C-alpha cells in the first residue's frame, strides 16, 4: 500500500477549483486512490462530493492511499498537486 501525507496548499482549501483539479487528476490515475483526513473514513479521491465533504482547508493534513501498479507514481503526482496553492496559480483578474 502506497501512502502519502500532504498538507493542503490552496488558499481556499480543497474546495471549488482546487477540488475539481484534484478529483479530475485522481480520476485519471491508473489505480483507485483514496483520501482521508485524520482518523476519519477514507473516501474515493475520484468522487467530487466525497472530497468536498472532507472540508479540508489550507494547512489541513490529508492522507492519500493507493494499491497496485503505478500507485507510487500516481500518489507522487497527486501529492504534489495538493501541496501547491492552486488558487494563487489562477490568472489574475485583469
Amino acid at each position, binding site marked *: 500500500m502506497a501512502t502519502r501525507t500532504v498538507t493542503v496548499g490552496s488558499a481556499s482549501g480543497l474546495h471549488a477549483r482546487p477540488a*475539481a483539479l484534484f478529483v479530475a487528476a485522481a480520476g485519471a490515475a491508473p489505480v483507485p486512490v483514496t483520501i482521508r483526513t485524520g482518523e476519519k473514513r477514507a473516501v474515493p479521491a475520484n*468522487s467530487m*462530493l466525497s472530497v468536498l465533504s472532507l472540508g479540508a482547508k489550507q494547512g489541513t493534513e490529508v492522507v492519500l492511499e493507493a494499491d497496485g501498479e503505478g500507485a507510487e507514481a500516481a500518489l507522487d503526482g497527486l501529492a504534489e498537486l495538493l501541496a501547491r496553492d492552486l488558487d494563487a496559480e489562477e490568472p489574475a*483578474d485583469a
Partner: protein
Amino acid sequence: MPDSAEPAPLHGIGVSPGVAGGPVLRVAGVPALPAPAPVTDPAAEAGRAVAALREVVAELHRRAGRSGEKTLVDVLRAQAMMAEDPLLLEAVREKVLAGSDGPHAIDAAFATHRAAFEAAGGYLAERVADLDDLRDRAVAVCLGRPMPGVPSPGHRYVLTAWDLAPADTVDLDPEQVVALVTESGGPTSHTAILARALGLPAVVACPGARDLADGTTVLVDGATGLVRVDVDPVEVTAAETADREHRTAVAAISGPGRTSDGRPVALLANIGSARDLAAADGAEGVGLFRTELLFLDRSREPELAEQAEAYREVFAALAGRRVVIRTLDAGADKPLPFLHQADEPNPALGVRGLRLVRQRPELLRTQLAAIARAAEQTGAEVWVMAPMVATRAEAAEFADAVHAAGLPKAGVMVEVPAAALRAGQLLEVVDFLSIGTNDLSQYTFAADRQSGLLAELLDPWQPALLRLIAEVGTAGRAAGKPVGVCGEAAADPLLAPVLVGLGMTSLSMSGRALGPVRAALAARSSADCARLARLALDADDAQRARKAVA
C-alpha cells in the same frame, strides 16, 4: 392602435429601453416529485436515471462552452463533476435495483450528500443550493420534462419569470431572448442590471407576467413598462423596426452632452476594469472606475505594483479625459477574504467603504500610492473619490490623504442621507461629489437593495430621493464645484433631464445608456430641465413623478 380583440396590456417598471416582441416562454419551474411508481424493469429504469444525470452533465458543459467568463466556467465544470460523481451514480443504480423508481432514486442519492454538506456548515452548506439544482434538473429529465431554468427553444422569444437569479443569466442566450418581463424585481434587481448590460428591453415588477401562457405573442416596451398581449406578429415586426430606426437616429447624435440651449452635462461611463473600456467609447470620460474587481477572490491584498499596473491600463486608454476612480468599496456587505472581518448583524450598516480605514489604514495608503504612481505615467485627468462617507470630518481626512499622495482632485460619494443633507459642508473640504443613487435609495428608505418586495421603495423616481439629490445640486451650484450621479438612475433617459434640472453637472452610466441619455438632454433646454425637476419633486409618489415628466 390595438384592435378590440387585444386583451388589456400589462404594466410594470421599464428598466431597460427598447421595443421587442415575440412568443412568451416562462422560466421552467422545479418539477414536483410524483408519488412513487412501481418499476417493472429495474435495469432499464436504472439506465434511464443514470442517463438523466449524464444529460445534466452534458447541459452543464454546453453552458460552460457558451460562457466566456473563466470563473463561471470553473463553477459549471465543478458542478458537472458533482453530477457525474461515481458514488452518486452507483447509489442511484443501487436504489433503483432495490425497487425505487428513477426520480425517487435520484432524490434519495442526492439527499445523502445534501445532509453531509449541510452538517459541515460554512462553504459546503452554501453549496447545498447547487446540489438541489442538479437534483431538480436530473429529476426533470427523468420525468421527461424541461430542465428548470431559462429555456433554449432555438428561436426568438420573450422570457418571463418571477425574477431572474444570477445563475439564470448563464443560461440566457441573447440570440434567442429578445426581451425580459418579470413579475417581481426592481430597477436595481439582477434582471434590470443584466438587461441593460445585454441591451435587452426589460420590464420588471409587472403583475400578471407569470400568468401569460407559453406561446402568447407580446410586445414589450422597456422604456414605458408597457407589455401588450396577443399582438399580431406583423405589428411586432413593425414596432421593432421603428424602434431600431429611432435608436439609429439617437446614435447619430454624438459629441459632448449638452442641453438644447448648450448647457454642458458631462456624460461619463461606469467601468470595473480596462475590459469595459470598449463600451465606454462614446463617453467623455469615466465617472466611476470601480476597483473591487482587483481585490475579489484574493487571499492577500494585491501589491502596490500590481494595483498600479491595473490602474495604469485604464488611465492610459483615457489620456486627456477625466477618470474618477473610487477607492476600495468592500466591507461586511461585500466581504473580502484578506480583510478577515467579523460577521456583522447589519452588514449594509457596518464597516464598509471608507470606514475600513478605521481598521486598516494601510489599505487606503497603498491604494492611493498605486493610483498616484499610475496617474504619473499617463495623460489622464485622475480624480479620486471615497465610498460610504457620512461626515465632513471623514471627507476632510480622505481629501488630505489624497492630496498627500500627490493627487490633485479628491471627492466623495453621496450614498448616505447624512452626506446629502450636509453636501455644502462636504464641498468645503472636497473638490466634487458623486451620488450613488442605489445606495442612497437603500439608506433613505431603509429598504434592502436585494429585496424584490421593496422594489417600489427603491424606485429612483421617489420624490424623497430626488429631494436629497436636489440638496446636493444646490450645494454644488453654490460652491461652483461639480456634482454628478453615477448610479443606475443616471441611465434613465426620462430621468436625466430631471437630474440636470436638480443641478447635476455630470451623469455616469453603463456605456450602452449614453446614446439615449445624450439624445434626451439634447431635446431639452435648461429651463425645461428645471421645470421637469420641479414637477417630479412635487409629485405625490414615484409613479406620478414619472407620469408628470413623461
